[in-house]
């Protein structure tokens, strides 16, 4: 296990211990995830990549408590996950905003179950509206915003109640390349300012490397860890790092891994 470097330094924020997930599809057991062991350190940024159907979203949902593992367990600060909780914020690929609420309303809604005072809540909302660059759009409805702006509201909504973990499921997958680049830089900025542990699922290898401290490559059918690759690029990172030779080397390695998996899958489908 240690050669896969699934252990983070120090006490783990999130521990995924022997987690497996089996779906029952019309009477047949389908193993989506076989056995995953992974520790994620406090304030670490971990990206998960893999071919489609490798179970990366399922894994994220299980950490979020939206899905239950069939074997193994997930620990947060040493305590087992039992359903969703306010120690974790979730950002989905579909923006999933409450369309009938304004930008401010969406963010404030997330604070309803918090014990902050009214003044503190207003301050938090204002702070996060500003942090995601939406000042001036407080009273706008999601319908009036672009995709990138909507996802910024979703990020603010997921962070405003001060969770210690941010779970992101292909959050920028639906955005155009330029907007995506800006959002990635914004996310790193927010991560740096607010100190959260991030688990980020994507199929975009550039994105995975650019953001993460470690990239987890999943193998498919059943989903399992193929490789954990520490990314030793200096922070703070900007778009310039994308053309760095070290970056290219990481990218080559991950692409080769994913390609190998894709070829295996194609061979499986043809047999």
């Amino acid at each position, binding site marked *: 296990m240690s050669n896969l470097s699934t252990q983070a330094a120090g006490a783990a924020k999130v521990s995924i211990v022997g987690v497996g997930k089996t779906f029952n599809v019309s009477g047949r057991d389908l193993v989506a995830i076989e056995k995953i062991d992974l520790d994620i350190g406090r304030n670490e940024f971990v990206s998960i990549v893999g071919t489609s159907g490798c179970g990366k979203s399922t894994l994220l949902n299980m950490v979020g408590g939206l899905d239950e593992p069939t074997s193994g367990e997930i620990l947060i600060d040493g305590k087992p996950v039992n359903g969703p*909780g*306010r120690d974790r914020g979730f950002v*989905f690929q*579909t923006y*999933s905003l*409450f369309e*009938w609420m304004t930008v401010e309303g969406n963010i404030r809604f997330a604070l*309803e179950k918090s014990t902050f005072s009214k003044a503190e809540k207003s301050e938090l909302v204002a702070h996060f509206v500003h942090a995601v660059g939406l000042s001036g759009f407080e009273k706008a409805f*999601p*319908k009036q915003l672009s995709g990138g702006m909507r996802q910024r509201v979703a990020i603010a909504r997921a962070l405003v109640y001060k969770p210690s973990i941010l779970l992101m499921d292909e959050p920028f997958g639906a955005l155009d390349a330029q907007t995506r680049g800006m959002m990635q830089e914004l996310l790193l900025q927010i991560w740096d300012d607010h100190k959260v542990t991030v688990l980020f699922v994507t199929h975009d290898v550039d994105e995975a490397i650019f953001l993460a401290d470690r990239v987890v490559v999943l193998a498919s059918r059943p989903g399992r860890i193929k490789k954990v690759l520490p990314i030793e690029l200096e922070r703070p990172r900007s778009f310039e790092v994308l053309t760095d030779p070290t970056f290219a080397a990481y990218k080559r390695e991950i692409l080769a891994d994913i390609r190998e998996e894709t070829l295996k899958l194609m061979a499986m489908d043809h047999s």
Partner: protein
Amino acid sequence: MTQQATGSGKPARKRKGLLKLRQDIPDSIFSAAGFVIPVVLFLLWWAVTAMGLVRPLFLPSPWSVIGEGWRQLMEGILFADASVSIYRILIGWLAATVIAVPVGILMGNYKLIEGLLEPLISTVRYMPVVALIPLSILWAGIGDGQKILILFLGTFFQQALMIMDNVKNIDLNLIRAGQTLGFSNNEILRRIILPAALPGIWDTFRITIGWTWTYLVVAELVAANAGLGRRIMDAQRYLSTDTILFGTLFIGLLGLLTDYLFKRGGRSLFKWSSQTR
């Protein structure tokens, strides 16, 4: 040069054709288009009757139909009929809606309730409402209650299933977002699922009240002494085709008005919705 580069050889012009796939056309033309067929039909109707191609018994002239409408209006019959019918429609539709909304919402969210009710509702909705008239009289008498019962039966079952679908169609991640934010099932139901499904439910309202209108004649088939549908059925006995035609067209017009009101209402209630156009 640039014109040739387009390849067509013709001068590059702004394309303004009215028959382009999925292309918007000016609003004025769009609205005017709706009048073309009615106007053509009206002219045809007029021509056919004016030239005496059909006997008035089969198709009275437009003028005699309009005259019949004028007579009913002047004698106060029209207003009396319309208010009785509108009252029945409103009560019948509201009764169906008041039950269909919670039933549909529960069916859309709880598999057990869907499993419990779906087979029953799906069967009943195919039963012809006309066939239930004798039973409805037996159960509800011959007063307004029976008419309202028929309208209820014609509306409720379809409506409940449609509302179930409206609820199911909302983005699952909205519910998940609610769960991650710490809301209880009950809160998610009331504060997330319900508002998210509301624009769709409103569309269902608009469609189903149209169906309630179409059941009006069926509801007033027996033992009614007033109502727009009743007037048509009475006219049948005396072969007053002008009364029949006027009554039918008038019900159509009231239906159109209802539809318009719901459309406008939906637009101003759900400005925030990405579904409203």
